[in-house]
C-alpha cells in the first residue's frame, strides 16, 4: 500500500469533502480555505495525474461552462484504493502522533 505524501493527502481529503464537485479550482480553494496554504493549480493537477496513474483517483472531463473561456472542468473521484491509501497514511500519522499532541503543545510554548 503506497504511503501518501502530505500534499497528496490534502488533495484526497479535499476530494472527499467536495464529493462530486471536486475539480482543480474547487480543490485548490478547499485546501486554501481549510489550511491557509497557497497552492497552484498546476501542482494540484500534477499530483492528481500521478495519483490517477496509480489508480487512486479517476477523472472525468465535463462540458465547458460559462466563465472558463470554453475550457472544461476536469472532475475527480476518489477510488477505493485511494480511500484505503489515504486512510492508512493518515492513520499511520495519527498512530505516531497519538498522545503526543499535549506534550507537543507544551514544547511549543517553551
Amino acid at each position, binding site marked *: 500500500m503506497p504511503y501518501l505524501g502530505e500534499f497528496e493527502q490534502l488533495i484526497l481529503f479535499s476530494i472527499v469533502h467536495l464529493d462530486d464537485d471536486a475539480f482543480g479550482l474547487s480543490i*485548490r480553494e478547499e485546501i486554501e480555505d481549510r489550511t491557509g496554504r497557497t497552492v*497552484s493549480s498546476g501542482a494540484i*493537477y500534477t499530483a492528481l495525474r500521478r495519483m490517477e496513474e496509480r489508480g487512486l483517483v479517476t477523472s472525468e472531463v465535463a462540458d465547458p461552462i460559462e466563465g472558463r*473561456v470554453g*475550457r*472544461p472542468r476536469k472532475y475527480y473521484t476518489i477510488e477505493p484504493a485511494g480511500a484505503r491509501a489515504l486512510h492508512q497514511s493518515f492513520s499511520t500519522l495519527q498512530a505516531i502522533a497519538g498522545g503526543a499532541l499535549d506534550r507537543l503543545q507544551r514544547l511549543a510554548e517553551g
Partner: protein
Amino acid sequence: MSDRRVAPALLRRCAELIVRGIDAPYVLGDLEEAWVRDRERGRSVAESALRYAVNAILSAVALNARRIRDGRLGASWLDVKLGLRMLRREPAVNAVSLLALAIGIPIAMMPGQLERAFDPDLPFDEGHRIVGIRTINVETSRSWTRSLHDFERWSQELGSVQLLGVWDGATYNVTTENGSAEAVEGAAMTASAFEIVRVPPLLGRTLQADDEEPGAPPVVVLGYGLWRSALAGDADAVGRTVQISGIPHEVVGVMPEGFLFPNLERFWIPFRERAIDHPAGSGPTIWVFGRLADGATRAEANEEVERLRQRWAAADPAEHAHLRSSVVSFTHVTGDVAFDTPEWLAMKALAGLLLVIACGNVGILILARTALRTSELAVRTALGASRVRIIVQIFVETLVIGLVAVSLGLLLADGIATVGHRAFATEIPFWLDFGVQPETVVVALLFAGASAGLAGVVPALKATGGHVHETLQHGGRGATSMRFGAFSSVLIVAEVAVAVLFLTFGTPLIPFALGNIEHGAGIDPDRYLAAQLWHPGTRPGLEMEPVDDSTFQRQIGELHAEVSRALAEESLVSGVAIGSTVPGGRHSGRWVEVEGMPASDGTPAHWVRTATVVPGFFEALDQPPVAGRGFDALDGLGADSSKAVVVNTRFVEEVMGGRNAIGRRIRTVDRGGGSPGPWWEVVGVVPRLGMFVADGRLDAGFYRPATPGLLNPIQLGIRVDGDPNDFGARLREVVAAVDPQLQVQTGGTIRQLIRQQRMDGRWALLLVGAISLVAIVLSAAGLYALVGFTVTRRRREIGIRTALGAQQRRIALGVARRAVLQLLAGVALGGGLAVVIVPGMASGPGMSHVRWYEAALTVSAIVFAIGLLACVPPIRRSLTITPMEALAEE
C-alpha cells in the same frame, strides 16, 4: 471599459504562452474561473491580476518541473548563470544595454500606464461598482450637467444603480473662529454619497438626509487635512463653527485621513437643490453617481438608462430627445481624457519606436560580442550542441540583461511616478495613481522578452548560421565570417537622426528652463507679493441671493476698490498694482497692426503681448511712463469706450522701429479673417515689465485700461516692506474683513511665480532631454561597437599594412570610414528633418523668432562630435597593433 468579470486578454495570452502540458487546458480554465470568483468577491482588478499571474507562473513551473530539471525545455539554470557571468565580464557593453533598456522600457510603458491611471478602481469597499451617469447633448457633443430633474427620476425608477447621489464642487473661503481664512476645495453633496463610498467618519457623523431639507441648519463635514489646519485637530471639533464664504456652519463630523472624495474636496456640505425649484431642463451644474445594485453589471445599467430615456423622450421630446446618458466608470463621469487623439497615438508610436531602436542597438552590441565568440560557438557545435541550444543560451543571456533592465526601469518609473505625484498632489484627483500596477509589470516583462528576442535571437541566428568547419579553419582571435549588415547601418543612422531631431526640438526650452529669467520682470521680483483675488458669485450648497450681471459687476468693482483702499492703509504696503496679470505672469498674445507700419515680413500684423490694468498700475510698480502718460481715472471708468493704450519700450523698438509712439494708432486684428478691433491711440510708453520673461525679444506689448468690476479674478502685485511671503496671512485677513466671500490665493513673490511657471518648461525639457540622451548614448555605443568590431576583424590586415609602412592616418581612416559615413548620414537626415518638421510642430506666434536652421546646425555639429569621440578608443587601439602580434595569432 470591458466587463471586469473577464480576465484581461493580455493576462490570458501570457498564461497561454507559459502554461504548457497535458493539463494546461484545465489549469487555464481554472485561472479564468478563479478570476471571475475573485471579482465577484470584491477583489480589485490589481489584486485579481496579481493572483492570476502568480498562479499561472507557479502552475507553469509545476507542470514542467521534470522537464526543467532535465534541461529538456531548452533552457536551464546554467544559461542563467552564464548570463549573470556575462554581466560581470563586460561591464561597459552591459551598462549601455542596461541604460538603453532601463530608460527605453519605462518610456515605452508610459502611455499605457497613463491610460490605466485614469481608469482605476476607487479605493473603497467594492470600489469598482461605484459608477457615474454622464449625459451628453448629442446636438452640441458637449456634456450636459443640468440633470437635476433626471437625477430625481433616476432615483425613483432606476433599479440597476442604487444609492444615487450628486455633487457640485467649488472653491470656498473657509474662516475659523479665530479669524484665520483659507481658500479650500469643497463640495455640496447628497448624504447618500457617504453610503455609496462606505467610509465611516473619524469623528461625529456624516451628512444625513435631514441636513438637505430647506431651512435645516447649515452643517459641514470636514476632511482630515482641513480639520488639522483649521481646527488644530481638535478632538472636540464636532459642534464647533467654521464660516464657509461668510456663512456659519456647524461641524458635525470629520472624515479619516486620505478621504478626498470625489476628487480633491476637503469638506462637504449638504446639497439642497430641488428639481421643483427649477424649470425642466434647467438647474444647477451637478455630477451624478451611484453604486451598481447587487448582481447588476454596467452593461445592464446602461440598457436600463437608455430604456428610461426613450420612454421619457417619447413623452417629452423637447427635454430628452437630444440627450444621451450612459453609465460610466466613476473616474470618467466628469469627462473622458482623450486617449484616442492622433497626437496621443503618435506619442505612443514614438515611445514604441524608441524601444525598438533601443532593442535594435542592444542587438548590435550583442552581435558584436557574439561575433567574437564564433570560435567558441563552433567548437560547441562540433561537440554536439544543437543550433537551437546555442540560440537559447544567447537568448537567455540577453533575457538576463532584459530582466535586470526591467527591474531598474520599473524602479525608475515608480520613482518618477512618486515624485510627480508629490509635486502635483494638490492638483490631481486622489484616485489618480501613476504608480506601477500589475498590468504594467506584465507588460514590462513582455517587453523584456521581446527585447531579448530582438536583441539576442537575431544576432544568435547570425552567429550560428555559418559552417562549423569554416569557422574552425579561420581560427584566431577575432577571425569571424560575420559582418555588420545594412540593418546595423540603418539603425545607427536612425539613432543619430533621432538625437539631432529631439535636441533641435528642445533647444527653445533651454533658455526658459535653465536661464536666469527672473530679472526679465522689469521690477525687483523679491519685493512684490503676487496674489489673485476673485469673487466666486453663488456657491453650490450656500443659500445666497442671486443678482443680475450688471449689479454683480458693480458690486465687484466696489469690492475691489475697497480692497485697494484697505491695503493702502497697511503700513507695510507701499504699492498695489492691479490688473489681469502682473509682471512675470502669463500675458496673453494678440495680433496688432500699427497704422501705416507693416510688419518686417511685409504682413500688416505683429504678434505682441497684452494686459488690462487698473489706473495706477505703473506707479504702483514704481515704473512711471518714460513718455506720455499712464492711465487715469477717466480711462478706467469708461474703459470700453476709452481709446487710450500704453505700449512698452520693446514695442516701440520692435514694432514701431524706434519712432515716436505717442499719438500713433494701433488695433487688434484677426488673422482668421474676422473684423479688426477699433483704433486705439498710444498715450504713453512704459519700460518693459515682464510680459514674456522667457525671451526678452518677445517682450513687446501693450496695456489697456480696466473697467472696474469686469476683471474677475484680478491679479495683485503688492509691494511690501520686508518679506512679501510674511504678508500673505495678513492679506487674507484684510480681504476677509472687506467681504468673507472674496477668495484670495497667493503665489509667493514675483520670483517664485516665475519659477513655478518655469516648471512646465523644465518637465518638458527633462522628457526631451531623456529621449535625446538615450538616442545619443545608443548611437555612440553603436559606433563604438561597429568600429571596435571592424578593428578586431581586420586585425591581421592592419598588422600587415603596418609592417608594409602604411601611415597611421590612412589606417585610422580605413577603420573609421564606414562609421563616419553613417554619422554623416545620420546628422544630415536628422538635421534635414529638424528644419522641415520641427518648425511646423512647434509653430505658433511665440516661436517665430526661433532660428531653426541655426539650432539644427549647432545640434548636428555637437552630435557629430560626440559620435567621433565614440570612435576614438577603438581607432587608437587599431594604431597600437604591432605586426608581430597580429601575425603571431595565426
